[in-house]
């Protein structure tokens, strides 16, 4: 009996076949079921991803040639400003919250989130904020000061667009604060009895780390934006130098949120990858505690590195050294994660399905972004490449090669659980191949462009950069094409795909111990842990001793328990390991 059979046997799937969302209307309503909200988040953010992607392709189309021949420079600036704002605030950040909403109560055996109505409120702030932001494009006065919106530029360009941008980002920030409170309380207070923090799935750890930085840093962004709104609309001069204000103070406040925000954008997907790799590698995750605690270390260090975005602007020389060192230190916990993932797949029995390919693609491309991040931390080199395409390349390797591939991996992995149907593997692999080629084609040449002297956020550039820009633009079209197999596959499979089993991947975490899709309130009976979350390979089907599967609160040891197994909670592990000795 394998660990998966043991875990499934110990838990009875919910009797009700009724999924959380009964009718299509439920997904358009103020439903408080965390699964409905999770899917609302994921579908809504994916729609915004497509909109942001179209904007990105318009930007790249302009950059196909050195001249401004496609859109006017004003419109060009609006396009990249909205592209970045949508991708960050309406796609990657809320998509992480979407997975967390769907998965966390299931993973810890809870019936719902701690505050279901707050949860719904958090979601329902997103569509209006997104529509508000996009409406600025339609009224012809879109924000065009970049997603950083540095004053004084943001104070002298279009006032209406800028005000809309501030309002929209404030709403989205509020939404993520509400979400973070909910995740922390849920994970902390609603785990099933017997699940200690060191037996939680790693995704829960990553959401603790994410929520902590969200709560600590988002209010500072809100403060910056409110002061900026005063400068913009009421004529104050907090940041406006013409009245003695200091634009550098805005940069400090902005980056105090926006640097940690990159960890808000990547930590949830670190968590997802830590879930997906062991399942499909059929091996325990290597270094559970190292991965768990490194999330916390990243979260803490992430709060004290913000000024590395300001090495060329307004901080004293000695302070640049401080921020260089804190930034570089983040490479250590990040490196621990990467090496642990590689060690997890090393020596496994890899099922190279779409979810696994995206997860391994995540590790492979994130490494490139991570390495260029260390380079950027080195002050003398950063002074050269700051505000160039090198930075653009770096952030896209982290946020596309990292976060977006992580989201896709999560979609492929949990699609059977969410919809009760399997995705088509062939088209999944086509999607993966196109995405990997497209992303490297788009973003790899940007490293060289930046170092050679192409600054970012420009509509016209030196003709000597034309060839590389042409390659980038073609790559971006390929990325656009790559989403079609996914969209068609997802819609078709959701309606007509083959029915999924409750646990199609033979996984051990609790979300797989209920029906696919899970019923309202998830579990009929309080689930129990018969194994740890990653005890793969503990028994390869040859263990004949175990016939009686332990149920519920009996702490009957079954098989040799991994270090994260609930069975290890027993005071004497030796006794626990061998039932015969207990007689």
């Amino acid at each position, binding site marked *: 009996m394998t660990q998966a059979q043991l875990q499934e046997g110990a838990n009875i799937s919910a009797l009700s076949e009724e999924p959380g969302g009964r009718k299509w209307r439920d997904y358009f309503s103020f439903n408080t079921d965390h699964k409905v909200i999770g899917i609302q988040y994921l579908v809504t953010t994916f729609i915004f991803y497509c909109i942001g992607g179209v904007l990105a392709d318009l930007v790249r189309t302009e950059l196909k040639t050195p001249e401004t021949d496609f859109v006017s420079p004003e419109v060009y600036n609006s396009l990249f400003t909205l592209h970045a704002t949508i991708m960050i605030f309406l796609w990657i950040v809320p998509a992480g919250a979407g997975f967390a909403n769907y998965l966390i109560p299931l993973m810890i055996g809870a019936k719902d989130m701690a505050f279901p109505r707050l949860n719904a409120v958090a979601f329902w702030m997103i569509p209006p904020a997104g529509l508000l932001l996009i409406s600025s494009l339609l009224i012809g006065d879109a924000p065009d000061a970049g997603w950083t919106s540095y004053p004084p530029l943001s104070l002298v360009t279009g006032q209406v667009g800028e005000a809309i941008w501030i309002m929209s980002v404030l709403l989205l920030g509020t939404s993520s604060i509400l979400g973070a409170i909910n995740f922390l309380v849920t994970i902390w207070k609603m785990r099933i009895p017997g699940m200690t923090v060191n037996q939680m799935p790693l995704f829960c750890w990553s959401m603790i780390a994410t929520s902590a930085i969200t709560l600590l840093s988002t209010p500072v962004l809100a403060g910056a934006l409110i002061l900026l709104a005063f400068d913009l609309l009421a004529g104050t001069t907090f940041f406006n130098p013409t009245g003695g204000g200091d634009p550098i103070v805005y940069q400090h406040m902005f980056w105090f949120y926006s640097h940690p925000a990159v960890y808000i954008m990547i930590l949830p997907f670190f968590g997802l990858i830590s879930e997906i790799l062991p399942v499909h590698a059929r091996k*325990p995750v290597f270094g*559970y505690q190292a991965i768990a605690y490194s999330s916390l270390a990243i979260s803490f260090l992430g709060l004290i590195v913000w000024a590395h975005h300001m090495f060329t602007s307004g901080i004293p020389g000695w302070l640049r050294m401080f921020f*260089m060192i804190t930034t570089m230190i983040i490479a250590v916990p990040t490196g621990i994660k990467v090496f642990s993932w590689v060690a997890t797949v090393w020596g496994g*029995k890899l099922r190279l399905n779409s979810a696994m390919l995206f997860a391994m693609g995540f590790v492979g491309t994130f490494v490139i972004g991570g390495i260029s991040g260390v380079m950027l931390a080195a002050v003398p080199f950063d002074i050269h490449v700051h*505000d160039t395409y090198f930075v653009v390349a770096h952030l896209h390797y982290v946020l596309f090669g990292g976060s977006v591939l992580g989201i896709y991996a999560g979609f492929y992995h949990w699609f059977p659980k969410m919809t009760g149907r399997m995705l088509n593997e062939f088209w999944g692999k086509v999607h993966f191949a196109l995405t990997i080629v497209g992303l490297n084609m788009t973003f790899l040449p940007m490293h060289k462009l930046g170092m050679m002297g192409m600054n970012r956020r420009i509509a016209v550039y030196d003709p000597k950069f034309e060839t590389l820009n042409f390659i980038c633009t073609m790559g971006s079209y390929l990325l656009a094409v790559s989403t079609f197999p996914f969209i068609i596959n997802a819609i078709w499979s959701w309606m007509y795909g083959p029915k999924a089993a409750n646990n199609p991947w033979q996984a051990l975490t609790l979300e797989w111990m209920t029906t696919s899709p899970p019923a309202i309130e998830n579990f009929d009976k309080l689930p129990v842990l018969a194994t740890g979350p990653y005890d793969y390979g503990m028994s390869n*089907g040859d263990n004949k001793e175990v016939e009686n599967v332990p149920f519920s609160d009996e702490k009957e040891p079954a098989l040799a328990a991994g270090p994260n197994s609930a069975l290890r909670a027993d005071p004497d592990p030796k006794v626990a390991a061998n039932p015969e000795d207990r007689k």
Partner: protein
Amino acid sequence: MNIPSSIWTLLVGIVVTIVSLWYGQNHGLLPTPASDEAELVDGLFNAMLTISTGLFLIVEGALIYSAIRYRRRPGDDSDGSPIFGNIPLEILWTAVPAIIVIGIAIYSFDVYNSIGGFSPHSVHDAPIEEQAVRMPGAAIAATLSDTSPNTDSNLNQEKSDAAMQDPATAAVRNADQIPQRQNAPGVGVVSPTIGASPDKEGTPPALTVNVTGLQYAWIFTYPDTGITTGELHVPVGREVQISMTANDVIHAFWVPELRLKQDAIPGRQSEIRFTPKTVGEYKLICAELCGPYHGAMNTQFVIETPEAFEQWQKEQQVASLDLQQLVAVNSADLSPAEFLAPYVSDLGIQPEMLHQVHHTHH
């Protein structure tokens, strides 16, 4: 013969090392280094790229090797071996990156010091006064421009005043409209700076150029000779100090071949010092988003022989005299396209520009 795996590991290690070392020196990713500082920065980058190449090859190699070697064979439904961790291995791969980043940090520190990152505006310019530190609310007061408990003069204002001594600079800068930042007591920082390299500490630069950034042009004034120009010319081998600020929004002074970049911020004076090394014509770029025509805000940066530089100075002095005779053009009558046409087409500053500056600010 069965080759032991340790030999394979050794061979792979040697190949990875050789490839990394070669690529770190032969990447061709950076433009010509045109200053003494640039060569130091390039050395740092080459070292980082060597280490990065090695890390990249190891991680990607391990992933691709695993995907091929450990893929599930059809019919095999068993699991991999249950390995939960390995403490010595985990300590090793925590220690190795830690040592690498400490090494890179020390190297960066050294390069930063050598190019003058710590130079001029260190604490001794405005010492921390104990009285100020002990005052209740000193930390709060430090953020308010009008309640500085420090009697030291405002270094930023001084630098601004010094630049404004030059009539040409005063003519293009609107410092009368943008108040200069007060300094926080005790820190005395003008703004971040790349100053004199340690061997030139305390010596005045051979040439000072005042730079003013405005949408969408750079204006250079030479206080020694009264030249005002839209192109930056400097003689090779002599240390140059650039003193910059901006008239409207934040701009950033960047010459890729110098590997130096510095934001020009309204209300703040910032400086960089460098020694040009290679004669040639380069591009000076605005690197900070400054509006729709940001991409067109660039100009020529010329490093020339001292003789050519003297010659150029003479020509400019004659041209500056002619400039005074021209009649101002009202910018309000110009469409943005007309207004910007000269900069997009010729990347230089036209006489009308300077008169618009007068027109706007007086």
